[in-house]
């Protein structure tokens, strides 16, 4: 039973750490937009889009 005296505080410490990490991530805007990042990877960059538009633009 004496192992509990070490394991339980460790578990609490880990939870504390998880909470701190999550608060940090939230305050830095990691969870503000959950939809766009998933799509942005397959979209062209602003630069690429602009050049593509130039090519297709009528003379």
């Amino acid at each position, binding site marked *: 039973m004496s192992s509990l005296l070490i394991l339980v505080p460790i578990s*609490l410490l880990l939870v504390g750490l998880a909470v701190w990490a999550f608060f940090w991530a*939230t305050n830095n805007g990691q969870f503000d937009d959950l939809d766009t990042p998933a799509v942005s990877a397959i979209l062209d960059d602003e630069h690429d889009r602009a050049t593509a538009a130039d090519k297709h633009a009528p003379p």
Partner: protein
Amino acid sequence: MDGSIAHCFHCAEPLLAHGVREAAIDGEQRKFCCAGCEAVALLIRDTGLSDYYRVRAAPALRAAPVSDDLSGWNSEAVQHAHVRSNGSRREITVLVEGIRCAACSWLIEHAMLREPGICAVQVNPATARATFSWDVQQTALVEVLGALQRLGYVPHLPGAEGDAAAVAQRRTALKRLLVAGLGMMQGMMFAEALYFGDGGGMDLATRDFFRWIGLLVSTPVVFYSGWPFLRGAWLEWRLRQPGMDLLVSTAVLLAWFASVVETLRGGPAVYFDSALMFVFLLLATRFLEQSARERANAAVDVLARAQPQSARRVQGDAVIDVPVHALATGDIIRVRPGEAVAADGVLRSQLGAFGEALLTGESRPVQRSIGAPVLAGSLCLDTAVDVEVTRVGCETTLAQMVRLVERAQAARPRAARIADLIASRFVIVLFAATVAISIAWLLVEPSRALPIALAVLAVSCPCALSLAVPAGLAATHARLAREGILVVQPDALETLARVDRIVLDKTGTLSSGQMAVASVQMQRGFPRARALAIAAALERDSLHPLASAFRPFADDAISAESLHTIAGVGVHGRIGDSVWRLGSAAFTQAEAAADLDAVYLSDEHGVVAQFAIADSLREDAVQACAALRAMGIRIEILSGDVAPVVAQVAATLGVDRWRARQTPQAKLDAVRAMQDEGAVVAMVGDGINDAAVLAGAQVSIAMAEGAPLAHAAADVVLATPRLLALPSLFGAARDARRITRQNLRWAIAYNAVGLLLAAFGWVPPWAAAIGMSISSLAVTLNALRLALPAGNRVAAQVQAQAPLVAQVAP
């Protein structure tokens, strides 16, 4: 209350000398300070809730000093863009931070109406928006919002500033949810150990160790994560208006305090796990609810953001950037491709292509030529154009649309009000029931009294009941707004679902109002194309409605000189060597047997062509009528036009019931006759000429193309030229009714069964917490189904029941 001064029957404000309104309430003539109070009082009377006036608490709230600075709301920009005025009344719609469930809206509505000068308050918990209207002679915007702040809610402008607040609110909610989630997992782990320990063998020291750890873990969950509930409960308590938060907080605090006491004195059982689970599951439900609400708002916010914040004004040779509220009527603004037009105006460049998808739902680019109207918020597509501003700020069509949608979202229909009232009375009954059940169990089996009281409080929270109606409405409004359908009257959806007869006007409704050449008869072997081109040249500068029919045939090679318009008969001019005349039979010297409605073209030698001009049917009119019939709605056409035209339109659409040459009065009588037969009639018109008929039908739908939206006297405004919006509107209304009924039935059944089971001790507190959350979640998710577009389903119906149309459809 002082008897010598007359008070408004509704808001109890001393009546001013002018503007007093009277209405009969419960057989007595009552006086009201404003139309808003009168309307609310009549609504309460009509819904049979006049008891409200007998039982309401009279004293007003003691004013606390306003903590946050509200002076920013006085700025001209805010007043200009967000405040609507109507006589001495002003109205504003704000985003309210802190609305968590239906109980809050009930609180705001009731408390705000007691403030001096506030005539009407409408709050929608599902969109977190509130509309206040007040009398400038009695109060000011800052006072109104100050009163809202004293209730514990923070107003924000819908738009950019509100966004930052919404992000902060969402982040905090997420943090609270995570603390509750991790805390619950830890707490359950220790609680599990305690349950196993009960079986035998755990010594008292270890048991107490686990209990103290449980206390340590649950405290932040109850007081940090559970803070929204505790704060809400405190507000409800202070205002003596018990609601859901009070119920939830009582259950959580009861479980937590009882466990602390048990831990301190080494009693038989602790309930930290119940408190943890309760907080986490409730937070999770509310978090999902909030996300759903944000999604519903997105439709409106997209509209609101369509108007840019700045514009480029042309001044002489220079083009300077100015903020949009600095624009005035008559200014010329330059819009570059890819930019949105900042104000309503008239095109000053020769040609321009615009994207109006947001405004009308029309996805194809729209070509406009010089002099044509351009709407704020439409996207300039290929070339830079100059636009002369005709309407700015809150007078633009876009602003009017946003306002209509916002007002519709903030307005709460009768059904929602009734559900709220039931829920709030239910809370009081529930507290009484809990006390009674606890006492009963104390007498029978004292050790089970506390867990059972907890379970009763948790399981029967009427959250699902008061969510059912607003959640469904928010989802339906969002879906319809996306299709360019604005439901202005909150009760309209309910009636729309019952409609079994639809009356259509022809001009402006079935037809677009655009004139087109329907047929051409040539004489003397004259070439057809040349005749049309000559007619177009003659009508080049004409403003007559018929002239637009020839515009597509204009040919640059043919131009007319010395044009003269003779009002009411026609136009003549010189092309090349000959003088041409275009107009009525007499004007062009056509033969005696001439058709009086036709237009003739003649030169010195006589008539060369005869044109029949008619306004063209909308592209999707046939499809729309087929879809409406498939839904079991009978169609009737009442038109002011002549019989042959109406007959032809009716035949094309497959409508067998039509009447021509109808005056507005005759139309109204026809609608009345149908209603006498027991039909629920929806009237579709252009919203202006047929206002009287629209008002006579149970539901009125206006095609608001070009017409000022705010003046359209209708329950529903179609901001899209597509007639297929009609079947989709009726479909949405029927879906909304079906799903809302499902939700109400489910919520009532759940609460009744849950309460009984819990009272007999068959539901442990943790299961009660799960049950309560699941019921709310089920209601919210079920309502969210309404936000899905129904386009596919309508198309399928049309194909199944009208094979002819299936060939036309792409």
